[in-house]
């Protein structure tokens, strides 16, 4: 149809997974947790570790605290994991942009589709340092930081606050409307045993009472920093059909990195919309479908306002209307669009896109247990910000 159409649509599938408990701090080193989850995902897929010949991850440590991350402690790269699993891969890769998990999946998918690897382990390892996540002891700012740090403008919550404040004022939205998003994420997360917030839903009153971090971003508009690892095994569709689990196929993807010139802060609402619109066009062309054909659009919610922005750029409600859409039950898993059915980051913890991808896999493979939705054939998993992120489309049929 178009030159942007994904020629390998339906040719690569997820064959198995593992998800660690998502906790504030693990009682084993992050590397040990990653090895354990890698082996569990390999076993779940019904293969042996010797068959794994490819690795992909996005290993960014997303703290603004200025730490130098140590591999195996704060991050786990593909190289570290392959070495410590004692396997000899043909394909080792790491995505270094924002939107790490879609980025890693795309590397894996392309490697499998071209025959560069047969079984690729995709993992994401997240670490919560003992100190405050974004607190930075710097007393001198250099490079791009010199334009922000001396003014007390620091860290992702502050960047998000600018775009969200713009949203609220531009569309006459009330902060209180966001309770519909955060309580929905927490309600779903409370039903997921590995989620940090398992068994702990949130009331609207709790949400409204949260302390402010960077107005209008409160503590509960941010996902909670956690330690955890998610791992998936991908292979080609033919091999996947011979393995124990029902395959979930990759139908297409899109990535974005777009911002206007002359801006230090990357999160400007106009940039999010403009870059997001380009991302959405590219996604629908690549996957050969439209948003209305997606049963399970798992939007990214590392900050709650991103839910509004993803819903709008993907076309699930008009621009500026998401705050009304969510208040009218638009994303309620029972009866609405199941956009946060997997708990997202707000209901699971700061797992950077793992809850979205995992929910797509569990629902489409029929492995969601008592949370299984009656009909889910086409899903998508978003991560990061519409103008600085990625989306992967998953399908139950090839």
């Amino acid at each position, binding site marked *: 149809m178009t030159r942007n159409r994904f020629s390998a649509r339906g040719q690569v599938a997820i064959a198995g997974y593992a998800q660690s408990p998502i906790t504030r701090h693990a009682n084993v080193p992050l590397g040990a947790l990653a090895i354990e989850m890698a082996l569990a995902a390999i076993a779940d897929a019904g293969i042996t570790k010797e068959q794994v010949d490819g690795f992909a991850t996005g290993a960014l440590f997303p703290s*603004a605290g200025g730490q130098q991350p140590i591999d195996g402690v704060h991050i786990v790269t593909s190289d570290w994991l392959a070495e410590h699993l004692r396997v000899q891969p043909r394909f080792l890769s790491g995505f270094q942009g924002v939107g790490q998990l879609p980025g890693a999946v795309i590397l894996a998918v392309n490697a499998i589709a071209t025959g560069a690897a047969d079984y690729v382990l995709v993992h994401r390892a997240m670490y919560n340092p003992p100190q*405050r996540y*974004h*607190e*930075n*002891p*710097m*007393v001198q700012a250099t490079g791009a930081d010199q*334009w*922000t*740090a*001396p*003014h*007390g*403008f*620091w*860290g992702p*919550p*502050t960047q998000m606050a*600018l775009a969200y*404040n*713009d949203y609220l*004022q*531009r569309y006459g939205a009330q902060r209180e409307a966001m309770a519909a998003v955060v309580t929905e994420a927490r309600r779903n997360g409370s039903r997921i045993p590995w989620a940090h917030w398992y068994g702990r839903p949130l009331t609207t009153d709790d949400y409204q009472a949260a*302390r*402010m*971090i*960077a*107005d209008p971003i409160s503590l509960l508009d941010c996902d909670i920093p956690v330690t955890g690892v998610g791992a998936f095994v991908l292979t080609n569709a033919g091999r996947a059909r011979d393995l124990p689990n029902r395959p979930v196929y990759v139908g297409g993807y899109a990535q974005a990195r777009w911002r*206007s*010139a*002359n*801006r*230090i*802060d990357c999160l*400007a609402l106009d940039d999010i919309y403009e870059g997001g619109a380009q991302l959405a066009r590219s996604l629908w062309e690549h996957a050969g479908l439209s948003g209305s054909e997606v049963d399970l659009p798992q939007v990214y919610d590392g900050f709650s306002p991103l839910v509004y922005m993803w819903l709008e750029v993907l076309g699930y409600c008009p621009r500026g209307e998401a705050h009304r859409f969510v208040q009218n039950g638009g994303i309620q898993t029972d009866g609405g669009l199941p956009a946060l059915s997997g708990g997202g980051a707000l209901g699971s913890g700061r797992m950077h896109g793992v809850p979205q991808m995992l929910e797509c896999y569990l629902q489409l493979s029929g492995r969601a247990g008592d949370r299984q939705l009656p009909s889910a054939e086409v899903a998508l998993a978003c991560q990061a910000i519409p103008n600085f992120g990625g989306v992967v489309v998953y399908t139950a049929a090839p």
Partner: protein
Amino acid sequence: MHTAFLPGFAALVPYVVATAELDAQPGLQMTARLLDGPEAALAIGAGVETVFEDVAESVSIPAFRLTGR
């Protein structure tokens, strides 16, 4: 800002940071503290002027103040 992520800002909380477009070059934006404080009537599009704060011996940094335009 209700949280100080950097040294030296704890005593200033809550403080306001703003991004302003420069008259001299439309599209060019700059971020700085807005000295009018969180109780000021703040609206996107409000006019600001640049002033300088002396934060240490021989260190001055730009800040914004509302102009009322």
